[in-house]
């Protein structure tokens, strides 16, 4: 069994809705809303109703959801209701996202944020940011996703938006799950569940339980995973949340598959596939068929004597799944299904086909692995649509983070070493300069003093002595000369002492 996981994402819209779906199924509830809407005049109440229909179609039938939210949007624009316009666009984005049209989803979310900002509605901004984070998570742009979540969380923390806070926690948990940080992921799911228990309907609880089960599948702790999946399935079933239930079924199938219980696994995947086909959810149909095909392959390998029917079934389902993946550009899961199909062709001795598919797989794999190698976010394991560029960025960011962390340490050390070196050099240089300066100063001082203060007295003394020697002079003159010699010699002595003192300094 190849390692295919099933992501569970629901798009939750920012505003609280009075969910009455508990008593009836979602489709019945929606039908009743549509009936009421038809009787209403074109006023703001009708906009609210249309939005509500669009909201419930997100998980049930996004194509229908798009229709009704577009109607709501048009009416809101006609009536000039800015706030309703923004919320309608957000709902439209959510429906596009549910239908795997992520480019459109991003575009509409940003448009909605713009309007909410222009009318100064922070709660609206936070809600759309929450939705946006889920789109980014789906596109594997985790950096952006986390950014959106924390922006939303900041707004919610200033209010008592318990449910919305829970949703943000859940989104963060989803991101940690994708990053394979299962401990953190578990912690955030539990935080979310804690909030949901007291502040919202069990629909949120079901979704969070289903997501938490995925973490237990990875740890792995299959019994706990199974327990939570069953709880979630029961709630979704009761609420008529078909797509929620289909995801639970698919994941139950995956748990069985991992436990090599192929008969049970097949049973659950078939059930899931049935619902997906019913709802027309292409990505779920693709993964459902792929999962069924893979299980047939595993069953064939275990069969003794070999059961030709099993391998034919495997080929059929896997081929279908791959074709569908191509249609919706569902790259990562395609790699997993290709791997299984290659095995099928090898078993069937159709080496030409196997060779072709191997080349195709290698090409996709290379592009995917290139992006994920460092983080070991193996693409084969994610089964998620991936925006290559965004993924590239994420891995690069992570890499850069690690590198820059190392570099930071290194450069910190180098910086320190360089600073110390500079200080030492500076000290040495200053010391030397000072010494040199002092030396220079002493020399020039000596020169100066020599020419004027030393040479001066010496010349005077010599002159005076010459006067004494050359001629016999009167006693008075002699005494004056001797006094001059004494006085000038004292002066010279003082100068010499001064030089000695200066040199010592």
């Amino acid at each position: 069994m190849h390692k295919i996981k099933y992501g569970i994402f629901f798009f939750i819209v920012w505003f609280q809705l009075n969910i009455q779906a508990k008593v009836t199924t979602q489709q019945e509830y929606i039908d009743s809303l549509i009936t009421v809407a038809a009787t209403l005049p074109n006023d703001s109440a009708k906009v609210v109703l249309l939005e509500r229909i669009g909201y419930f179609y997100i998980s049930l039938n996004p194509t229908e959801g798009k229709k009704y939210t577009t109607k709501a949007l048009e009416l809101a624009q006609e009536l000039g209701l800015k706030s309703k316009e923004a919320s309608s666009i957000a709902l439209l984005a959510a429906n596009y996202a549910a239908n795997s049209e992520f480019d459109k989803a991003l575009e509409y979310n940003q448009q909605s944020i713009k309007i909410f900002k222009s009318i100064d509605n922070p709660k609206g901004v936070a809600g759309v940011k929450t939705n946006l984070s889920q789109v980014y998570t789906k596109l594997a742009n985790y950096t952006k996703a986390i950014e959106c979540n924390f922006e939303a969380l900041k707004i919610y923390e200033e209010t008592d938006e318990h449910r919305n806070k829970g949703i943000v926690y859940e989104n963060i948990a989803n991101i940690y799950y994708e990053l394979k940080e299962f401990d953190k992921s578990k912690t955030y799911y539990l935080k979310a569940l804690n909030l949901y228990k007291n502040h919202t309907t069990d629909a949120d609880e079901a979704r969070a339980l289903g997501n938490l089960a995925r973490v237990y599948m990875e740890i792995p702790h299959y019994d706990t995973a199974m327990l939570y999946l069953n709880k979630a399935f029961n709630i979704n079933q009761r609420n008529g949340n078909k797509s929620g239930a289909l995801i639970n079924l698919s994941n139950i199938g995956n748990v069985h598959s991992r436990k090599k219980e192929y008969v049970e696994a097949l049973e659950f995947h078939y059930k899931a596939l049935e619902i997906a086909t019913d709802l027309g959810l292409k990505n779920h149909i693709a993964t459902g068929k792929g999962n069924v095909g893979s299980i047939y392959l595993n069953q064939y390998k275990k069969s003794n004597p070999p059961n030709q029917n099993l391998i034919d079934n495997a080929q059929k389902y896997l081929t279908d799944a791959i074709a569908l993946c191509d249609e919706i550009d569902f790259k990562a899961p395609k790699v997993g299904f290709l791997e299984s199909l290659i095995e099928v062709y090898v078993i069937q001795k159709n080496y030409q086909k196997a060779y072709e598919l191997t080349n195709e797989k290698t090409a996709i794999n290379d592009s995917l692995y290139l992006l994920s190698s460092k983080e070991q976010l193996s693409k084969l394991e994610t089964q998620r649509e991936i925006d290559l560029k965004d993924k590239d960025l994420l891995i690069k960011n992570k890499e850069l983070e690690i590198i820059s962390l190392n570099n930071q340490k290194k450069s910190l050390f180098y910086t320190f070493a360089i600073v110390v070196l500079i200080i030492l050099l500076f000290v040495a240089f200053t010391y030397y300069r000072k010494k040199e300066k002092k030396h220079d100063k002493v020399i020039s001082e000596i020169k100066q003093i020599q020419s004027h203060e030393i040479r001066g007295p010496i010349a005077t003394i010599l002159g005076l002595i010459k006067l004494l020697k050359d001629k016999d002079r009167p006693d008075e003159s002699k005494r004056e000369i001797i006094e001059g010699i004494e006085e000038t010699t004292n002066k010279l002595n003082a100068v010499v002492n001064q030089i000695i003192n200066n040199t010592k300094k």
Partner: protein
Amino acid sequence: MKLNSVLVIDDSKYDLFIATEILTDYCDVKEIVCVDSAQKGLAYLQSKENALEELPEIIFLDIKMPLMDGFDFLNLYSQLSDKIKNRCKIYMLSSSLDPTDIAKAKNNNDVIDFIEKPLSEKHIGKLFN
């Protein structure tokens, strides 16, 4: 050798004494005027502007003096009237052995020669050659 007047400018009292003694001993000088600063020397010269015959024929000028040194004196001296300058011959008299001082002195147009202290008999002989 007969001289009417000699001016000695030096801040050292014993150098002035030596100059006076030597000049007295080896020259026939009617008047030896000693001043202990460049300013006093300039003032003396200016005071004799209208009595040219009383101006010194020879000026012995020290270099190293406080406030105004020998070269400062020369700068101001060059601005004096030609009547004065034509009459006086300046000799720099210094103990300095600094070649720049010597060169500077010798290159000055108003300076006849540089004499190394102490002033002695042999210098007097040269003065009139």
